[in-house]
């Protein structure tokens, strides 16, 4: 089975959408502080492994060099991550874009959740861990969030 067939199976799963899609007017890109929020199930060295159904998050310092991809699901390629973490968590690319002046700066704080959640309502993320992560990003004076899956 290829990713194409896998996508057709997983693409039909239930998901949660808000009745009204929120919209925040962005600051100019070259003035924006950018954070990555990934659903790849990353962890830093001393964090616990991820388990199916975990709707919490982990904080990733900008200079973390001991990241592990620890998502519970086996249904995606891990080799790309081992070869180059930027294929999932493009922190080096953001630094380059900041040096070029295309984005304003790279945030001190980044965040990982874990996707492929069995509870498609994502109640904990919507009501608890999502707002808690937003608070961290606010404290880090983030303007723009880049979300990456796996």
């Amino acid at each position: 089975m290829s990713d194409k067939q896998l996508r057709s199976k997983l693409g039909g799963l239930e998901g949660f959408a808000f009745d009204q899609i929120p919209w925040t007017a962005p600051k100019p890109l070259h003035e924006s502080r950018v954070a990555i929020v990934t659903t790849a199930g990353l962890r830093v060295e001393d964090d616990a492994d991820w388990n199916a159904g975990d709707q919490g998050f982990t904080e990733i310092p900008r200079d973390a060099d001991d990241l592990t991809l620890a998502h519970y699901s086996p249904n995606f390629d891990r080799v790309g991550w081992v070869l180059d973490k930027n294929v999932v968590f493009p922190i080096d690319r953001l630094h380059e874009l900041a040096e070029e002046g295309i984005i304003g700066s790279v945030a001190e704080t980044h965040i990982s959740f874990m996707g492929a959640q069995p509870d498609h309502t994502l109640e904990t993320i919507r009501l608890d861990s999502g707002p808690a992560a937003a608070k961290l990003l606010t404290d880090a004076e983030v303007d723009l969030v880049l979300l990456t899956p796996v």
Partner: protein
Amino acid sequence: MGTLASVLEHAGFATVALSSIRGQIETTSPPRALHCEFPLGRPLGKPNDADFQREVLIAAFSLLEEPDGPVLVDYPISIEDDADAPLSCPIPPSDTSDRNPTAAEALGLLPAWRRTQETYGRSTVGKVVTAEQVPDMLDLFTRITDGESWEDIGFPGDPTKIAADIKNFYEEAAISLSNLPPSARSAESWFVTETLGGQTIQTARIKMKEAGVKFYFWYYLLPMTQHHEVDTK
């Protein structure tokens, strides 16, 4: 991920999401999404290709110019995985004098796995066991293939996580054994179809399914892409 994007947008951030499964992003409808038909697990497309990754990010950030949303745009370049094309990868000859052949195979791969660590400095082995423990874990899975119940074997943790450690160990060894960096899922297919270790996990998975074991414990022993038709009976 689309729902999470909306939570963060609602909290006052502008968000841009890279999408990997179009059906899910349509269902969850984040404010701005760039759908990239890249291998699952490689959302920026190409490892060690900074220019390619940069272009994806530039395209994603260009969505911020849209006056209203939701916005869902398809990236014009697609990349296929190689699940149907196992990596061409030599397996070092192993010493089977005092180990079962599957465990001996894994022992023989340890030097290659260590070379990958020295080169890349990253591993996805270690959810439950270390690379050095992989041969012992294959002994345990071999007992399932011989007919023992998985619950009687005494796994040191969640068997799906141990199976992930085994698969990831083989894939990471393959990085150093192949001539080119493995394309997406080619090392996975090599593991399942060409190695004793992969065949052991596949057989154990099917035996556990047929024995009526709880769905989670047999289903997540291998990626869905490697659930071959033999277990659909």
